[in-house]
């Protein structure tokens, strides 16, 4: 009897030891050229898709109702910011998964989630910065919250610096050489703050319904869209923090520029919010600045390639119109999806519209209504394939390996 009990005990201990023995640890590092982060607003997850194989790597669960998806300056982190259709404003910081030592990617994960009162600030899917650090503009309590930590992890204290903004509002922000420029939608002015002291330098007034902005890197000038025209503000030398000129819209449509797209050279395209029948064009190399108009099919989303070669306009009928990024000549049309039926009006609750990103003449479009992504060869003018994601894919952030730091 004693012998039987001893053998049983030994066997039991052996099995426990076996259970905690060494196992083969497989590397999750994966070689990819392109990594897409796609906001799925059916459940608030961020879907990661790698190319060229087009495989879904994983889904990262964030708070529902994503409004903004943006990469930081160094492409180390992706920020997912909530819209306003809930009563809790959160920003999730996600790892991109890029491993600079091997040049390969791991599966991304949420590093931490922080409370931010009506978060905003990113432009063109890039985080706002102050002195090279990521910044979140909290529109509810009128602050710029600068995340001063070089590395963001889950357990260290998140060091922050805060700048007070003039008033709660919807902001359009850009960092200048030494000043911070904060456009206020409802207040209709651009507040200028000194980056070093945080003190207000001044307010450039007279821009009602300020919505949308861009910059001309060559002149250092900023362009803020107002209700009836665009206000040009200088940031360098004697022009610093001063209004330089105004650019009237070409016709009295009652609709301004909600956002700008960079075309070829110093050409910029801008479009209004909602479903629109036209784009405006301005060549910033020619003064006095002047808008011209490009008529387009009722468009649900627009984008341009990073080199400005192509202007891409997605129509409500599901056709991608490819225009020359300099003069607006129509180059080709590509049928990408079924029509977007009904009204597609995006408010500040959550993102609902499709998005377009591109790299090396390949475009990726989230077809929100069909729950998939179209991968399009712009040179060939054809859809290469569709990748089913399910849900309602909206915003995209694209990371290309060749642009990531080794």
């Amino acid at each position: 009897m004693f012998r039987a009990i001893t053998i049983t005990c030994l066997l039991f201990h052996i099995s426990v030891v076996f259970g905690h023995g060494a196992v083969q640890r497989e590397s999750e590092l994966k070689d990819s050229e392109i990594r897409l982060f796609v906001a799925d607003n059916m459940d608030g997850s961020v879907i990661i898709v790698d190319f060229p194989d087009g495989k879904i790597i994983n889904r990262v669960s964030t708070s529902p109702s994503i409004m903004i998806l943006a990469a930081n300056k160094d492409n180390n982190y992706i920020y997912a910011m909530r819209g306003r259709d809930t009563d809790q404003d959160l920003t999730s910081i996600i790892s991109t998964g890029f491993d600079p030592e091997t040049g390969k990617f791991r599966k991304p994960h949420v590093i931490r989630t922080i409370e931010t009162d009506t978060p905003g600030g990113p432009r063109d899917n890039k985080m706002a910065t102050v002195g090279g650090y990521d910044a979140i503009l909290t529109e509810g309590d009128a602050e710029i919250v600068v995340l001063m930590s070089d590395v963001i992890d889950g357990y260290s204290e998140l060091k922050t610096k805060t700048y007070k903004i003039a008033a709660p509002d919807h902001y359009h922000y850009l960092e200048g050489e030494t000043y911070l420029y904060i456009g206020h939608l409802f207040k209709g002015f651009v507040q200028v703050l000194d980056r070093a002291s945080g003190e207000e330098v001044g307010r450039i007034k007279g821009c009602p319904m300020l919505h949308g902005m861009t910059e001309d890197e060559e002149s250092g000038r900023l362009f803020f869209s107002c209700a009836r025209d665009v206000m040009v503000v200088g940031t360098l030398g004697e022009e610093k923090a001063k209004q330089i000129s105004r650019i009237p819209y070409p016709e009295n449509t009652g609709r301004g520029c909600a956002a700008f797209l960079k075309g070829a050279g110093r050409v910029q395209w801008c479009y209004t919010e909602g479903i629109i029948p036209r784009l405006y064009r301005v060549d910033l190399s020619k003064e006095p600045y002047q808008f011209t108009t490009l008529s387009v099919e009722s468009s649900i989303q627009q984008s341009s390639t990073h080199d400005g070669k192509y202007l891409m306009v997605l129509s409500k009928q599901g056709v991608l119109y490819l225009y020359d990024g300099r003069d607006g000549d129509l180059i080709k049309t590509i049928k990408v999806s079924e029509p977007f039926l009904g009204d597609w009006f995006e408010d500040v609750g959550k993102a609902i519209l499709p998005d377009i990103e591109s790299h090396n003449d390949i475009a990726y479009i989230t077809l929100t209504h069909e729950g998939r992504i179209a991968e399009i060869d712009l040179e060939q003018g054809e859809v290469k394939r569709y990748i089913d994601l399910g849900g309602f894919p909206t915003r995209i952030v694209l990371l290309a390996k060749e642009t990531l730091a080794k």
Partner: protein
Amino acid sequence: MNIKIKKLLLGTMMVLVGVLFQSNVLAHADHDKDAIIIKMADIMISLEHFPTSEDQKTLQLVMDSDSSTEQEKIIANAIMNIQHQATSENQQKLQKIIDGTAPTSTVSTLASIVQGFSHGISKTDKRKLQTIKFKG
């Protein structure tokens, strides 16, 4: 009333109307999208054979509400009386909505789905209803 006050009131009203029609303001305002249509789409997504008593309460509220449009009341009534499918009388009423609205409109889509309902929701119609619910 003093003429100056009248002018002031009129001016204020004009400014408010002007502001209301600014798309930028609309986009940044908190507003309810087609709340009633979304409510009915939500019921249809999980409808099997006939509406539950909970669904019927919601539909009755839609029919009794002053803020519901005539079209919404007709659709609510049609869903309320579904017994495996809409009654032929309600199918005719729904057809009038379909004929009288843009085929791409949300109301038309919902009316078509209710009109063609048969015991349960097809995968295609479920996606359409989820899209209505998603985008409002």
